[in-house]
């Protein structure tokens, strides 16, 4: 019987053969923290191990300030300071301060992530790095602090689900719509504890941005890790950033043709239409056509699921096709994932178009994934967002959010009510 990608990765990281259900100790390639969670890790590590204790390898640690950057309160500022001082004491050089953007994206751009890497992070969407074949997973502060002791941690070898995707998206429809469809079909617990391999011609031809979007929502189905082994342009991009060994790793860690899967699903995207997650759960899914015309107070485009250049460009195309102005009744906010993305938006003139359209174009952060950030919504308001969660009151008590693609979000901003982007792009 052949092996799935996650089994190959865990064998490599644990140094011995594994089977599904085993608990194995794996070496950690990266132990990362954000501004939230990071201070908890530092305080816990030093409380348990002593102020003078050294981490196992400072070159395997990273800190990314992305949730509340720049700090919006004294408490957050103090937490960030705890981390800066810890890095100084420990000799950690990979501290990505408030001027970088969303952690996973920043690490990816910096060439830190390779297929097969075992990455722990205090962000439940850490696993979107499966988009380049890494085994990345979101954990709490105890897991990170304990990893600092010896650079290892325990994992259960998960079963793997395979999702094969074929077909081509029609104009106005994109990868975000596919994953919204999948989460509607499978539900919030539909991938519980599973690894998920995405394969098929649509995936083989997908851009890095599309792969990141697809992988970002596996957490919302309680999946452990999504995996796509890099090929084509994505492989080329990753080799340029992370080094030539990426090529061998991608080949070696690809699932065997006779690997065993607990479930296999097929999706064809030829006839897919724009989809949305309705309040107040990601798996409360409807086609956009059914909710078109719904009142909206705010639109947000960005986050780890849809804050890449390609996402912002797609939204820009809709904006310009729709006359270059957003409705004055809708507060519209665009947040690039990283400084690299932001700079490209500025250099290509898109940022200026956004400002002229009446849009707030912000610095790179996770922004509206939390109520404690600019763009928080008051009770009773309805928002549309490209983030990955719309739990009740997530960005403000009593507010409700629809999740959708950047194109649908921009169509909504232009029209002032929930709108199908195909009506603007035709």
């Amino acid at each position, binding site marked *: 019987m052949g092996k799935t990608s996650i089994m190959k990765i865990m064998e490599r990281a644990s140094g011995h053969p594994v089977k599904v259900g085993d608990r194995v100790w794996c070496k950690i390639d990266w132990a990362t923290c954000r501004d939230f969670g990071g201070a908890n890790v530092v305080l816990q590590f030093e409380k348990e191990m002593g102020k003078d204790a050294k981490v196992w390898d400072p070159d395997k640690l990273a800190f990314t300030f992305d949730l509340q950057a720049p700090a919006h309160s004294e408490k957050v500022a103090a937490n960030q300071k705890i981390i800066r001082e810890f890095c100084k004491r420990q000799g950690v050089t990979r501290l990505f301060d408030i001027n970088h953007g969303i952690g996973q994206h920043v690490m990816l751009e910096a060439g830190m992530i390779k297929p097969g890497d075992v990455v722990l992070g205090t962000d439940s969407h850490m696993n979107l790095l499966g988009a380049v074949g890494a085994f990345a997973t*979101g954990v709490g502060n105890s897991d990170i602090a304990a990893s600092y002791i010896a650079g290892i941690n325990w994992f259960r070898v998960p079963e793997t689900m395979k999702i094969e995707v074929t077909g081509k998206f029609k104009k106005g429809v994109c990868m975000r719509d596919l994953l919204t469809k999948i989460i509607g079909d499978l539900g*919030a617990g539909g991938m519980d504890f599973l690894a998920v391999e995405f394969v098929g011609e649509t995936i083989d031809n997908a851009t890095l941005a599309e792969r990141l979007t697809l992988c970002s929502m596996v957490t919302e189905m309680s999946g452990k890790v999504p995996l796509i082994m890099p090929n084509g342009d994505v492989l080329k991009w990753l080799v340029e950033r992370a080094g030539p060994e990426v090529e061998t790793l991608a080949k070696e860690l690809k699932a065997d043709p006779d690997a065993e899967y607990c479930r296999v699903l097929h999706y064809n995207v030829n006839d897919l239409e724009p989809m949305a997650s309705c309040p107040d759960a990601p798996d409360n899914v409807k086609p956009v056509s059914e909710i078109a015309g719904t009142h909206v107070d705010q639109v947000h485009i960005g986050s780890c699921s849809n804050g890449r250049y390609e996402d912002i460009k797609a939204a820009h195309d809709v904006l310009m096709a729709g006359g270059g102005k957003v409705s004055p009744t809708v507060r519209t906010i665009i947040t690039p994932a990283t400084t690299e993305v932001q700079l490209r938006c500025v250099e290509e003139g898109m940022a200026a178009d956004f400002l002229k359209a009446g849009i707030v174009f912000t610095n790179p952060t996770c922004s509206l994934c939390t109520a404690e950030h600019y763009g928080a919504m008051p009770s009773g308001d309805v928002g549309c967002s490209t983030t990955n969660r719309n*739990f009740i009151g997530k960005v403000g008590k009593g507010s409700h959010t629809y999740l959708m693609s950047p194109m649908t979000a921009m169509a909504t901003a232009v029209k002032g009510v929930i709108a199908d982007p195909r009506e603007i792009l035709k």
Partner: protein
Amino acid sequence: MGEILKGRAWVFSDDVDTDLIYHNKYLAETDPKNMPQYAFEYYPGKENFAKEVKPGDFVVAGKNFGCGSSREHAVYCLEYAGVPCVLAETCSRIYYRNAINNGYPVLFVKGLSDAIKAGKIKDGDQLEVELSTGTIKDATNGETFHGDAVSNLENDIMKAGGLMNYMKAKVAAEK
């Protein structure tokens, strides 16, 4: 016979996400002792949980408890409120891991989701929970439920009092 814990039930639905347990608004908090005051503040109908919960009370939920964020605050806020364990039909992967890593028990209880929906276990019911066997008795209405035991490694981590202690001992033993 293992120890039997007795306390009142606080009953929740399926898919209770981490923002409902401990909202993102309070993520900057770093001291676990300060976290119980925010527990379930955003859960409709349970806004009074933090004020009214008594040490020994149980959190009872359906499927996929703790879905969403990796924040360990969502474990601490119950642990430090004196809730001895979470009883849920299933629990999200990250929440389960965070609980184990703190030596905090989560019992997976078959049929609990349907029992909650059918009103067979309600807020305020008196529960008797035997962690060693996973047996849960609802003394108010006589219903009995059975939870799964945790695996060996998770059990060892729990017995060590959490992952930090376990890891310290493991590293010392291998030196």
